[in-house]
């Protein structure tokens, strides 16, 4: 289990990480989502002990990273954003070196062979890392993270720069790893996190702005429902007619669909079904309805709303 409590990291006046807290249970794949520069890598670097926090605690299976760093680090396999590769070594030599510095007690040759096979690097073990493609370098980075079968895997944007087939392969691999390890997986790509993770923590401007299960994220961050209605009639008349309905919070024009006809987004309170009232009011005012769809916010919309809302606050000082 990984527990992050009130984590703070300041660089001068800038708060790169601001009171971040979350918990990852054993066997869970946590998606750490946020736009570039949100504080994902800084948080991960603190969790792994690469940099120290200005405040707060990180506990990896009862070992606190600052108080008991050796024990905590033994439990983590870390693949940073740029894999830490000694490019003048062969894949085999590099993994042997990483095996040694991680002070792993498993049988060396057998374990390295196993990791090479898992990451499909067996045929490339004698090649110099500098001669490998980006995708294979990323695999070598993942292989070193897997050495010693650490209970916690921390992967910082592992699919950046890979081609679509490599991305798909990597995602399948990570999903498989989630069965044996606790995984924290960071990305700025929503669909990727959605495809792999059980739970998502959204971070922006150094703050956690959402923490929910993947399928509950959009409803967790929206206060109400969203009704999409295509109505014929003058925009101001339609809006003024709808305004009187109880439970409506906001009416906005999504787009013009035809001459004198628009698609409206009507945000309303979660527990009130406004469809009957909308129909009655529009019928009374002779404003024909061409379509009406009740739907929550898509995950993408929810994510954009979250990150744009916080970004609008500007950089924190």
């Amino acid at each position, binding site marked *: 289990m990984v527990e992050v409590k009130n984590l703070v990291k300041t660089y001068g006046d800038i708060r790169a990480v601001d009171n971040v807290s979350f918990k990852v249970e054993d066997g869970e794949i946590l998606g750490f989502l946020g736009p570039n520069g949100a504080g994902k890598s800084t948080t991960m670097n603190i969790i792994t002990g690469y*940099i120290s926090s200005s405040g707060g605690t990180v506990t990896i299976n009862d070992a606190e990273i600052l108080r008991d760093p050796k024990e905590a680090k033994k439990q983590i396999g870390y693949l940073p954003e740029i894999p830490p590769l000694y490019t003048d070594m062969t894949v085999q030599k590099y993994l042997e070196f990483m095996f040694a510095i991680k002070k792993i007690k498993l049988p060396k040759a057998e374990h390295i062979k196993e990791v090479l096979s898992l990451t499909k690097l067996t045929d490339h073990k004698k090649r110099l890392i500098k001669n490998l493609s980006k995708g294979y370098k990323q695999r070598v980075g993942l292989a070193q993270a897997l050495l010693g079968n650490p209970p916690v895997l921390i992967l910082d944007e592992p699919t950046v720069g890979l081609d679509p087939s490599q991305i798909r392969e990597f995602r399948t691999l990570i999903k498989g790893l989630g069965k044996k390890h606790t995984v924290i997986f960071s990305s700025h790509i929503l669909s990727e996190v959605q495809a792999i993770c059980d739970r998502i923590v959204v971070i922006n401007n150094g703050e956690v702005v959402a923490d929910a299960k993947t399928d509950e994220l959009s409803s967790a961050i929206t206060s109400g429902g969203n009704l999409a209605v295509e109505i014929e009639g003058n925009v101001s008349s339609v809006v003024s007619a709808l305004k009187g309905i109880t439970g409506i919070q906001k009416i906005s024009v999504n787009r013009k669909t035809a001459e004198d006809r628009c698609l409206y987004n009507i945000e309303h309170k979660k527990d009130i079904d406004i469809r009957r009232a909308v129909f009655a009011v529009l019928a009374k005012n002779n404003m024909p309805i061409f379509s009406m769809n009740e739907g929550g916010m898509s995950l993408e919309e929810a994510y954009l709303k979250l990150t744009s809302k916080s970004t609008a606050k500007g950089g924190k000082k």
Partner: protein
Amino acid sequence: MTAILKKELGSFFTSAVGYVVMAVYFFFGGLFFYYYCLLNASKDMATLFSNMFMITVLIIPIITMKSLSEEKKQRTDQALLTSPLGLGEIVIGKFLGSLLMFVCCLVIYLLFAVTLCFFPDGAPDWSVFIGNLAGTILFGAAMISIDIFISSLTESMIISAIVGMCAGLAIFFIDTIANLVSIDWISTAITSISFVKHYETYTSGIFSLSDTVFFLSVVALFNFLTLRVLEKRRWS
């Protein structure tokens, strides 16, 4: 620590650095040996060692230039600092790796000494030879710790090498600097940290505890400072 040491030593010989350093050291060693010993029919190796002092000063920054600067630049320090290794193990591993590389260069002196033995009455004074060798190793160790410290301050190995060479030259000419200072106590203070002065005792084949302690203190001080730089980087 052993893993870091092996990796450091291995990296000298998987790149050209190790071979180039040894070739340059052997070349100048051979040149001075030919000139001072063979050409003058002398078995005095102390002059050879003294002349190699400058080469040592210039060659050690080449050995240490990649040590920590390249780790930082390539972000491979992330692998080291997120492993269960202590910072002390990393610094000592790096230091011993570079020291062993330097000791590999010194092997040439054994060859020179053996060569002299083939001449009639040519066997060198072994106590002087061993004293010089021990002095060179201690002086080299002190320079390596200083240059690794310099390497920890930058991401550029070129800057690390240039600053290391400048520091070496400043140390080499510190006696001249002391002579230029007219205030006695400052001049004495500068002379007391002169590497050349502390090295001189060994050239006569005398083992001096105080000079050994001096060089070992420099090693301990700069390795400690390197450790503090790594520690500070994590907290800043």
